């Protein structure tokens, strides 16, 4: 199932559905990296609220997305990680270091708005 990428002002929002195959994840990664420059977006929000399991591939892909987006001149925020998933990820050593995180979509938007307020 393909992940839709929504444009919301200066940001792009991608919402994960429950079960994503590795191919879907790869497709999402390429889609985001292409569109972030095409729409001249300042940031990308990846919402993973629906994921109650996060395997190492998904986690690594998230980190790669964040780093690629940064190389393309924008920022990434991961939002909506479930408490159980968060602890399982940490135990597997998947801590998404260097990637911004927020509680949910609202918080992620608030974080980005705050961050870009001064530079607007």
């Amino acid at each position: 199932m393909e992940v839709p990428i929504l444009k919301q002002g200066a940001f792009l929002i991608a919402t994960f559905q429950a079960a994503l195959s590795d191919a879907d994840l790869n497709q999402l990664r390429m889609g985001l990296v292409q569109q972030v420059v095409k729409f001249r977006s300042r940031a990308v929000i990846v919402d993973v609220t629906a994921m109650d399991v996060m395997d190492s591939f998904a986690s690594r892909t998230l980190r790669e997305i964040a780093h690629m987006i940064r190389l393309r001149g924008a920022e990434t925020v991961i939002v909506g990680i479930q408490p159980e998933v968060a602890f399982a990820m940490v135990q597997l050593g998947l801590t998404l270091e260097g990637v911004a995180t927020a509680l949910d979509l609202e918080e992620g938007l608030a974080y980005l708005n705050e961050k870009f307020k001064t530079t607007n």
Partner: protein
Amino acid sequence: MSKRDVASVPPESKRNEEPSELLRELVAHLRQNRTQLREEWVVRISETRLLTAMTKEEIFAEATSVYDSYVEALETEAFEALQAYARNLSERIIPRGVETHEVVGIVLLLRDVLARSLFAKYQNDFKKLNRILDAYEPAANRIANTVAVGFVQERERVIRQQQEAIRELSTPVLQVRERLLILPIIGVIDPQRARQLTEQLLRGIRTNRAKVVVIDITGVAAMDVTVANHLVQTVEASRLLGATVIVTGLSPEIAQTLVTIGVDLGKMNTVGDLQGGIEQAERLLGYKVATLAEPR
């Protein structure tokens, strides 16, 4: 086999006398000499300084009911009533600080007192004494076992209940300001409690929409490597939920542990005491605390 048949067989095959019949004889003997034997037992109990937490009258009252249930268990060979009594007794005496060795001790004393009275009664008929003891000993040992196990089980139940109570009391996640949680940890943290703390904290972050969490471990004297690692993981997991964790009140020993396991200090936000932690949290949240007037 009826009694009349037994009487007609030659004396040497009397060895095959029913054990239950012997037990009946035994029980009759114990009933007859109840007052005297019970007295003797109580004297032995105070001589050996058992049950010092209880008064003489209490010991006598308990001894009476233990004696009666003991004889009854010998008679009926049904241990349920005795078991229930042992549990009930344990429930009453555990809060008064009666120890396991005391309970086992008094039951063994009773066993010995009764055995002695049997020796005295059958001293002229050694074969009969042997047979009586054959019937008495297994039953008596089983009684001692039942009482001891009942006591220990009751004690374990009490301990479990208390652990549960402590666990529930000991993990509050408190909101002190909008979006600011405090998790004060006091006492010993074992891996199980650490896991529970983490679960509660992560859930608390979600329900309170917290942005900053202060974990205060002033009340924790030391933690082992497993728990220290767990603490670090909790900090990282909280970050994945978008919350910043500030750890306050690290004791020198815990600081040593964290250094030994090589924690990446860039991930850990630590402040000396709880007050400093809350002040830092307020800064992060954009609060500014000002004094409106001089305190009276």
